[in-house]
């Protein structure tokens, strides 16, 4: 929004700080020469008419065009082609006050910073007017020093801001490019687990479980538990499975025993039913 009003140029070459500002605000005729406020019926007007009405909104815009009192001062200095180090405090103060006065006349509520600066300028001005005694005020220094330092400091960052703004910037001067990725197999890698991790986790559970007498874990031999699962899965979705089909000769005696124990355990846990329709008839097993 600040870019909408160009006030910072030195090319306007006007003496009064007010024209640029009033001119911009109410969009009176801009002109190249001695910068009247406006041309009224062909006659340049160089004084603000007493009855001139400037809408307060417009002034607000002007004030926003300056980034504070330092910016305004810089503008006043540059407009006279002055070096910051050369500033003539009484003249700048005069112009600054004039600006402030207009603001006040317009009943514009000035930000505190502007008034503070006005006070500082007045103080510097008065100090500069004091007669100087060469030796005594050695350590006091130039009354303008602090102001000049601040102006310089502000100016370098004002310039830096412009420099940053003119850097090639993404989505204005440069564009990040992208191309369509090839079709990818969505392979989400699965976590790796070491057996030890499971055992350690289990040990922890057991420790906790041990504390609850009622929950103390009694474990069958793992081969039996495994066979229980195996038998159950064989029985899945089936009505009856012949008892003998669950045994396999290749496993030998031990395998038969494990299967048998697993069945006993399953019966004990009421997970299977064993059915024999007649004595010495075929035995069938079914999941509950």
């Amino acid at each position, binding site marked *: 929004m600040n870019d909408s009003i160009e006030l910072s140029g030195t090319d306007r070459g006007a003496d009064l700080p007010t024209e640029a500002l009033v001119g911009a605000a109410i969009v009176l005729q801009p002109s190249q020469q001695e910068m009247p406020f406006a041309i009224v019926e062909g006659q340049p007007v160089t004084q603000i008419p007493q009855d001139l009405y400037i809408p307060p909104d417009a002034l607000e815009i002007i004030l926003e065009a300056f980034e504070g009192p330092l910016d305004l001062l810089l503008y006043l200095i540059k407009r006279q082609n002055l070096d910051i180090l050369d500033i003539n405090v009484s003249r700048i103060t005069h112009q600054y006050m004039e600006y402030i006065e207009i603001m006040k006349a317009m009943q514009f509520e000035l930000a505190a910073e502007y008034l503070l600066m006005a006070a500082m300028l007045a103080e510097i001005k008065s100090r500069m007017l004091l007669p100087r005694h060469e030796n005594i005020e050695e350590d006091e220094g130039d009354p303008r020093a602090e102001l000049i330092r601040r102006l310089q400091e502000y100016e370098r960052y004002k310039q830096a801001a412009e420099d940053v703004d003119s850097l090639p910037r993404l989505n204005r001067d440069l*564009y*990040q*490019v*992208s*191309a*369509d*990725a*090839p*079709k*990818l*197999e969505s*392979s*989400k*890698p*699965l*976590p*790796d*687990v*070491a*057996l*030890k*991790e*499971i*055992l*350690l*986790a*289990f*040990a*922890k*559970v*057991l*420790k*906790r*479980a*041990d*504390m*609850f007498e009622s*929950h103390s*874990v009694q*474990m069958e*031999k*793992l*081969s039996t*538990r*495994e066979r*229980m*699962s*195996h038998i*159950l*899965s064989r*029985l*899945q979705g089936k009505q009856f499975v012949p008892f003998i089909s669950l045994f396999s000769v290749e496993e030998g005696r031990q395998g038969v025993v494990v299967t048998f124990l697993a069945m006993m355990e399953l019966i004990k*846990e*009421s*997970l299977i039913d064993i059915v024999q329709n007649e004595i010495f008839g075929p035995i069938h097993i079914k*999941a*509950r």
Partner: protein
Amino acid sequence: MDDLGQLKRILEGALLAAGEPLPIERLALLFADNERPQNADIRTALKEMVEEYQGRGFELKEVASGWRFQVCQDLAPWIGRLWEEKPARYSRALLETLALIAYRQPVTRGEIEEVRGVSVSSNIIRTLLEREWIRVVGHRDVPGRPAMYATTRIFLDYFNLKNLSELPPLAEIRDLDKINAELNFEGVDSKSHEVEPESEESFDEVQDEPLATGLETEKEDR
């Protein structure tokens, strides 16, 4: 637009910046009225560009909605690694559940919860089922007919076991230090000591029970 090279530069710049297919009509609109090339010229330029990018890692292609640059399909194995997520780590809650299923199968969720002292999230069961480390082998004949879980062949293969009886017996498990000593020579990596936040959470839950806290600490001190 008198310079074919500049036309191509603008076209490829626009196609790459857009990141989506652009039809020729839209490409034409990049140019001010007084410099706008004919659609035919744009098409010619695009076709020449197709040739120019032969052998590179990307290609210019005409698809239904216009022209676009796309990365060559044969690079998929490498490109895929761009987004490859680091394998997550399983929570201790999951590992405990898996261990309980392995040692107590066939076992229901309720039974696991009873031993662990905390509830088992459906997520954990789902993850284990999806990984095909466990499966449902039946339903217990109690109200609600809860599923009974058991470990699978894939589980055994993953942990390089012939059968479950190769797992250390319960008595040994109870002696944590011994497991550590015994298993270390197998070259199990050091990951296991890392405890994830999730798992800590489950421990907190347990410790909330007043009985557990005191006793557990006492035991661990031994």
